């Protein structure tokens, strides 16, 4: 279904030999940001998905190999990271200044 599942937690049951997982956490002022909106943008900056971070500030996407941007929108501000993902686990941290 299309609703975003709970973020964070174990990777058990996820086949990292086929899935391209992009995951990480949103931080601000030395602490994780819960309830931040994180969106995944493709190489043309078009929206692909959006999730809300867990109490630990975590997010996770299932993408495909290639260039992606993750952008966070929260009450405390915005931040973004660009990354080149490969099949398997790709981890990144978004810092909101």
């Amino acid at each position, binding site marked *: 279904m*299309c609703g975003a599942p*709970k973020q964070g937690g174990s990777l058990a049951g996820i086949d990292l030999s*086929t899935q*391209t997982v992009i995951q990480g956490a949103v931080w601000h002022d030395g602490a994780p940001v819960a309830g931040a909106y994180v*969106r995944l943008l493709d190489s043309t900056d*078009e929206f*692909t998905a959006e*999730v809300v971070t867990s109490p630990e500030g975590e997010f996770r996407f299932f993408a*495909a190999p290639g260039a992606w941007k993750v952008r966070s929108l929260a*009450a405390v501000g915005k931040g973004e990271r660009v990354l080149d993902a490969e099949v398997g686990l790709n981890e990144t941290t978004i810092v909101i200044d």
Partner: protein
Amino acid sequence: MSRNDVLVTADWVQENLGTPGIVFVEVDEDTSAYDGGHIEGAVKLDWKQDLQDPLRRDYLDKTAFEALLSAKGIGNDDTVVLYGGNNNWFAAYAYWYFKIYGHRDVKLMDGGRKKWELDGRPLSKDTVDRPATQYQASEPDLSIRAFRDEVVAAIGSKNLVDVRSPDEFSGKILAPAHLPQEQSQRAGHVPTAINIPWSKAANEDGTFKSDEQLAALYGEQGFDDSLETIAYCRIGERSSHTWFVLSELLGKKNVKNYDGSWVEYGSLVGVPIEK
């Protein structure tokens, strides 16, 4: 029909909390958001548990819809204001659904839950109980719902608007990227469909773009006003968002939502697919 008839702002909602005759309804697939805090007085509709037939792949029949709304304390004369997470995808689906069953006055809260949260507006954890009603639904209005045979027949003759992300349209991925990518459907899109992602109609805070911006968007992407239109996505909720834009905000005629969408089309034997 204009924007003011179908869309209310978060400010308007906050000013109208507790007003008799207005029912706020949060619609989500994952209702843990509602349980963690909702707009004061809002009732909850669970997209999967409440709005889908438990056995067949379909929405509720008329009798079940009447029972649901009666139990939720929603009356025929109430103004229903819908909002939810996921940029109002499921709230837009519920809006389309309330229209199918003829509810007279239904609106969306612009920006949904995201805008409300980003504004730092108050959320309540109080249990909401409304007295039951005797809701009477109309017969389903199928002029706004498309079925698979109509979609196949529309190839090359109607506006087919695929509102999924470009990577889903091209077949690079099969589902929105917050979901695992193992699905049984074939990847791609309906031939002659134009790809106008739902997200182009929304600002980053989840609110809809202005009427002028929206009119320009569809014009630029090859939408032909002289043709009938079918919008689709993967399971019919993002395409409800676009159906709302085309039919309710822009006032275009003969727009249908194909709620079977790619999960159905991409599983059909023998139909044409483009990648």
